[in-house]
């Protein structure tokens, strides 16, 4: 049986759109704050979301980020259409990168993206078909009682 979903939202990410890169993660961060997710979980989730978003911007034609939040867990799925990843094992190795100079000039493409996402997430799944695209599914377990116990509680309207 599916767990009760409190919130689900999808966003489109465009490849090579470096001006708006990060905009989706920024929106996700706002949603998570408003949902009362603990700051520690938000930080791990947003660092992962942003790295994933940058991966779509840097390497794919377009992608969709879907966020779903339940009382127990928050899930982020990023599916893209693009060149995909030929060797996932290699892509997960710190320092491995196929980034162009343009990407490196922006401070990315150091081969830390996927390892960083894996490090920050509680569940991590990635699959890819070369020439078609990549699907990344990550989850973050919410801490019990986070609403009451985290740094003075969430902002209330």
């Amino acid at each position, binding site marked *: 049986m599916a767990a009760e979903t409190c919130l689900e939202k999808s966003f489109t990410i465009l490849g090579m759109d*470096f001006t708006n890169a990060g905009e989706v993660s920024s929106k996700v*961060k706002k949603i998570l704050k408003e949902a009362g997710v603990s700051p520690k979980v938000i930080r791990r989730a947003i660092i992962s979301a942003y790295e994933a978003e940058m991966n779509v911007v840097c390497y794919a034609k377009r992608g969709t980020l879907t966020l779903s939040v339940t009382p127990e867990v928050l899930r982020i799925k990023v599916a893209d259409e693009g060149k995909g990843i030929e060797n996932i094992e290699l892509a997960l190795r710190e320092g491995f990168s196929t980034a162009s100079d343009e990407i490196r000039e922006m*401070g990315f493409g150091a081969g830390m993206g996927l390892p960083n996402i894996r490090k920050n997430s509680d569940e991590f799944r990635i699959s890819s078909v070369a020439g078609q695209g990549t699907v990344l599914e990550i989850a973050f377990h919410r801490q019990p009682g986070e609403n009451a116990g985290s740094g003075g509680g969430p902002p209330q309207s």
Partner: protein
Amino acid sequence: MTLQEVKEILDAQVIIAPQDPNLELKMACGCDLMSDVLAFTKEDSLLLTGLTNLQVVRTAEMANVRALVFVRGKEPDREAIALAMSKNIPVLVTDLPMYEACGRLYQRGLPGCSEVEEGSCAAHGG
């Protein structure tokens, strides 16, 4: 260390002033690789960097970096300033190169990110 002290130590120019004039920084990180910033910085850090593009501000936003210092006298472009302003991220610019800017702050007691435990109050005066 307060941002005001950082400004004085680095002879820096304020591009965006903090909303809180007594803004406290627990630690700092000097880095031009944004993925490394995301991987290794902790919350409430000061980020010193030589990159001045939009992604630096985005990275600061995502990693909860408290304030930005651009080194080597590099002024951020208009878009980056506008974004930092909208996200309430203070911005300073110093003519000092990265090594010297970091060295001065470290010498005056602002620790690096690996030296401070996340959520720790050790760097606060009280």
